[in-house]
């Protein structure tokens, strides 16, 4: 935090009571335009020890219990000994990489294997630093027309790009999110229905992240369950 240049600019006096044992309290630097909106005065609090910890222990035990039962009922897969001489068809990466493997099926390795994951990780890292979604302002709150045009153009271009590479798997979620996004532009904060208001209130970052989440899920599910020999389509119950 101390490295944050913003902090040096703002002249805030931190007041800390020295006798912490008597009245332990939270310290927070509240910056301009970056309010965590903490309102402590009406917040009920609990002691970490033992109350919060007991909750935590319960969570730990529930997780452990579930894992124990899964482990009792389902055996971890083990196939024949590794044999470099014969390649299974299809050879699949661990499930969490199957989205990437699915992309590799469409795009050259540099794109799917390096560019996309690199961009994703980079994007995730910079999220908090680029004023993304900090305000949580609705996408259509300002410049509705201009934004609508830009977003429509980007969407169309992106869909064309996906079509060019024949990536139907990724195209469907993109269209879904895109349609929802453009549709939400028609609403306002005074729309009659809750859903409409909810959709309207969402900022751009929400839409992008949701698109990413759905793409990730769809690609992983497709790679895990719907890909067979030669990375061809297959139904999960066929083998």
């Amino acid at each position, binding site marked *: 935090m101390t490295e944050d240049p913003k902090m040096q600019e703002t002249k805030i006096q931190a*007041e800390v009571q020295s006798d912490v044992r008597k*009245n332990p*309290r*939270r310290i927070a630097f509240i910056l301009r335009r970056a309010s965590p909106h903490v*309102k*402590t*005065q*009406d*917040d*009920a*609090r*609990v*002691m970490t020890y*033992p*109350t919060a910890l*007991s*909750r935590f*222990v*319960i969570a730990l*035990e*529930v997780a*452990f*219990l579930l894992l*124990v*039962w899964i*482990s*009792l009922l389902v055996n971890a*897969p*083990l*196939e*024949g000994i590794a*044999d470099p001489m*014969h390649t*299974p*068809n299809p050879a699949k990466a661990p499930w969490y990489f199957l989205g990437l493997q699915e992309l590799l099926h469409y795009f050259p390795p540099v794109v799917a294997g390096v560019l996309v994951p690199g961009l994703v990780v980079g994007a995730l890292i910079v999220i908090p630093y680029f004023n993304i979604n900090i305000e949580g302002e609705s996408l259509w709150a300002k410049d509705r027309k201009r934004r609508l045009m830009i977003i429509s153009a980007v969407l169309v271009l992106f869909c064309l790009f996906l079509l060019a590479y024949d990536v139907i798997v990724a195209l469907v979620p993109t269209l879904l999110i895109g349609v929802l996004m453009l549709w939400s532009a028609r609403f306002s904060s005074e729309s009659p229905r809750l859903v409409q208001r909810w959709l309207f209130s969402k900022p751009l970052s929400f839409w992008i992240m949701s698109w990413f989440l759905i793409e990730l899920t769809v690609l992983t599910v497709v790679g895990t369950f719907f890909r067979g020999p030669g990375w061809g389509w297959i139904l999960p119950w066929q083998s």
Partner: protein
Amino acid sequence: MDDNNKPGPLRSRPTMRELVYFCVISLVLLVSLAIAPAKNYFSEWRHYQKSYLAIAGQRQSGTLVRSFQGGLHQTWIAKLGVVDRCESCHVNLSGALVGASEQPFRKHPPMPHKLDEFGCVICHRGQGPATSVKEAHYTTEAWEQPLLPARFLESGCGQCHLGPLQGAPRLNEGRSLLSSMGCVHCHTVAQPDGNVLKPDDNPPPLTHIAEKTSREWIYAWIKNPQLYAGSATMPNFQLNDQDAADISAFLIAQSSASPASGTETKTVATAAPSANASIEAATLYGASFCSSCHAIQNEAGNLVGGNLGPELTRVGSKVNPDWLRRWLDNPSSYHPGTRMPHYRMDQKQVALLSGFLLAKKDNDYLANVHLAPASADSIARGKKLVAETGCAACHQINGVNPPQNFAPDLTLVGSRALAQVVFAPGMKHNLPDYIAAKIHDPRSFGPGLKMPKFALGDSQVDELTTALLAQTDRAAGFPKELIISGGRTTNYHPGGKAGRLMEDLRCLSCHAINGNGGDMAPDLTWEGSAVQHTWLEDFLKNPNTLRPALIRRMPKFNLTPDEIKTVTDYITSAYQSPALDLQPLDPHVLNADAAGRGKQLFYSKYGCQSCHIADYKNDKGYVGPALTSVGNRLTPEWTYNWLKEPNAFRPATLMPNFSLKDDEARDLTAFLMTLKAKQGGGK
């Protein structure tokens, strides 16, 4: 910041609900955790060990119960990569608990190896380290090789025992089928010691085929060889009419003139085939012992004769009469590699025999074959087909080179990964069934496959499968000292002038010498020590029979006295055994007294007459050679040594080793040497 002085309500203890949740979940968690060791305790193998102890207890086998060692039992042999835990459930393999007849407690039947010498899975397959029934016996995700069905079990032996093995008839038969059906012309089958199986079906060259037969016959033959001769080993390529016509056209077109084609055989006027001539011809066929190698179907439909040469039932429909005469005159001028001896028949005999054979005709056989004249197109297409079908892998053909790496290498087929196997629909997914199906009907895997259909019975398919399942990568990695190579045939060939003569007579087609040759007739490796020079000359002049009950006999080759002398001299001088013990045979020990004692031994103590005939009047033994004139035939030294230890000289002999004492052997020799042909009398 000013809010800090107004803290909200503070809860310092967990609520009752939280505590109850905590207690309940902790309890459930503890119980769940206890299930894992319980699961372990109630495992299958422990259950079987308990029931074994229960059975043993019921039968009051107190010592058995007390001496039983519970827990996982395992055979671990590092150098073979064996970790077998089968005995954790199969606790009674040694049979300590008598009479337990249900698995897993059945006693292991007798076998040549100790239980812990090789473990279980080297022979039985299955997953040795596994300790549950399903994992150990069946195909699972982690283990492809299920327990081998009993009918393929001998494949286990074949991993180390590379040659014929007593007690493994199916393996032996399967291996010999690989050679005799010609599988190894196309497929490489190498054994762990480096030996590569060689074909021994001797397919004829087709370089001069036009002289031998007609295009129509070739057409009919390649369409279905078994239609011409049920015993034919040539497989059915399931050719369509057009392909067969093209191939036959090409084969005729590529045929060149054989060296023998110039020699014109005189067609001796056999006159009109009189009844007398046909009897004479049949007698000649019999006296030449053609049936030792060739079979003919009799009226009842049974094949009579050997299988070293082709079946002759319909030979008249096949061969060109001129060619047949030239062939009978000297086979090797047409086919230098033939196994057929050069008989040295005179023109009359050739005419008689060819007439006899040409009469073996099936007029219906080619009645429906009408081929359009061969066009250049057809010939070119035929050539392409011949190359594609791989005809040249077996047959020598002008202008077509033998294909290289034509068919898959079968060296490690017995452990092929199922992932590399393409199953036909509806097949069981395991290796033995796949191999058997592939042998039984290769085209069931797809019409485009090249492998032809062989005429094999169900048991032959199983035998071939057994032999192929022995070709495992596991065996390839075994320590060298475990590998027991088969008796390899040498490439011995007699040398010099006599050698050339013996080659011409194809002695090695029937006789083995120094580890090379056939097994139809006695091994001649030590023949020079065994027989007397004069007897051998007489025998070659007119090979009369030695064994009354033998059907296959030595044919008469019509040798000239010079040739007989050459061969006899060579055999008696070259084929001498260095192992003959000549010490105790002082000529004057073989006196009449000794002969008298020997006769006693012959008839009373050893009952030799039950197998041999020393005297035609009284003796009836039909197993060994007749000994009525053995005094003329065998040398006394050989006789003595032979009697003492027959299997030392010919390991395959039927004559038992009686462990005779020296004086008994001497007396018997003395007696046998008195058995001589009566002057001027019959045999």
